[in-house]
């Protein structure tokens, strides 16, 4: 096995470990993110490389969230390497996912993703309330408050791992997630599509024309999986 092949095999698990260690926050540590060539799905232009990996496995998604957002939500991890001499900017509004039939999808707002993860605190509270014939009202209220607190933390965690708008200085690398909901909602991404195309329409740079990227992303590949 060549050294390059070994590196490529290590890229996914390293990415997953990195996300876990960083508490799913965006990572600017180039060493932790590895080399651009280690990522199978990538596009490079004028010193800037954008890599994308679809996280479809439950065990990988559990490193991001304590609950799963559902199979119709695609978590796309982007890694941007800036080896150019200019600062550049990424806006999630420019990152569209193109389905095989040509449908273009815009990313989900982070708060929409969070709503998928919200616990229904009223259900747990109701069970306790009824089971204790109303005498456990204080306990059920405490349970509801605790679940509400978890939802509050989920909102922060989701916002933290979402790559919305970032600036990369020269020789800086960054990773984060962009989320997409399948059309129609409820459809399993992995079963419906083998691969999708990611298009980043504009990535503005200081003192130069903006860059544009397009790449295919295999949905059956991701951290801990063999890429094709």
């Amino acid at each position: 096995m060549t050294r390059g092949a070994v590196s490529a095999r290590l890229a996914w698990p390293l990415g997953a470990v990195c996300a876990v260690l960083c508490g799913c926050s965006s990572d600017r540590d180039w060493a932790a993110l590895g080399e651009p060539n280690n990522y199978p799905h990538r596009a490079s232009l004028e010193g800037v490389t954008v890599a994308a990996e679809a996280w479809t496995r439950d065990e990988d998604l559990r490193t991001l969230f304590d609950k799963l957002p559902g199979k119709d939500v695609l978590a796309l991890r982007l890694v941007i390497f800036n080896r150019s001499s200019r600062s550049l900017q990424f806006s999630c509004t420019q990152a569209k996912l193109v389905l095989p039939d040509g449908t273009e999808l815009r990313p989900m707002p982070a708060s929409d993703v969070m709503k998928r993860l919200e616990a229904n605190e009223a259900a747990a509270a109701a069970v306790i309330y009824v089971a204790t014939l109303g005498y456990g009202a204080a306990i059920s209220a405490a349970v509801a408050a605790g679940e509400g607190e978890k939802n509050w933390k989920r909102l922060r965690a989701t916002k933290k791992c979402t790559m919305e708008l970032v600036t990369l200085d020269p020789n800086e690398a960054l990773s984060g997630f962009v989320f997409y909901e399948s059309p129609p909602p409820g459809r399993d991404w992995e079963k419906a599509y083998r691969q999708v195309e990611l298009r980043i329409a504009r990535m503005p740079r200081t003192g130069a024309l903006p860059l544009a990227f397009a790449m295919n992303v295999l949905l059956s590949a991701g951290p801990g999986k063999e890429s094709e």
Partner: protein
Amino acid sequence: MMSSRSRVRSLPQMGAVVGLAFAMLSAAGCSMPISLKYSPLAATEAIATGPTRPRAFVTRFSDERKGETVGEIKNTLGGTAKKLVTTDDVGSLFAEAATDALNKAGLVAHLHSERTAEGDIPAAELAGYDLVVGGRIKEFEVVSQPGWDTLKVTSRAVIELGVRKGGKTEWIGPIEGTAERREVSYIQSQGLTNGLDSALQNCMRNMIKHLKASGVLESPPAN
């Protein structure tokens, strides 16, 4: 062991508890009207710094929210106690906010809330303007929920911004604005109004940043 008499007594009690639980946990069906406001931003990122400031014709935002409510007040057990509604014009409010944000960002923006970005605008009205700015409101809601010791208020606004320049409209989005507050005392309608105001302000700040990152005001992409 429970006697048959006490069991009979416990059935109505059980029914009352279940009924009360459902009443507390499900939407009571009542709604509370709240008013909306937008507090002008102190400053935003500058996106037009050249000698000539682009002139923007700002139209009313179209309201594409799924429901008619602008949020809810949750009870102690996490159920919906009251749904929040408003009679204020949400589309005009967002247009007013966008006009303020664009002016603070260095453009010369004028509000024309009787027009929409998708609709036809007479050429005579557009004379002297470089671009038409409008939007679609996707989400605008505030939720208050009792916590351990404070009341938590979360609010969010999600829009898509439409910019028409040179006969071509580009939609930028979703652009999100969120706000989180912890209130010590029981929140009244003013606190909910402020929550929505904060989310809208945050959305407008993000709108300017994403507008800058989209490069729409500058030249087209190189490739």
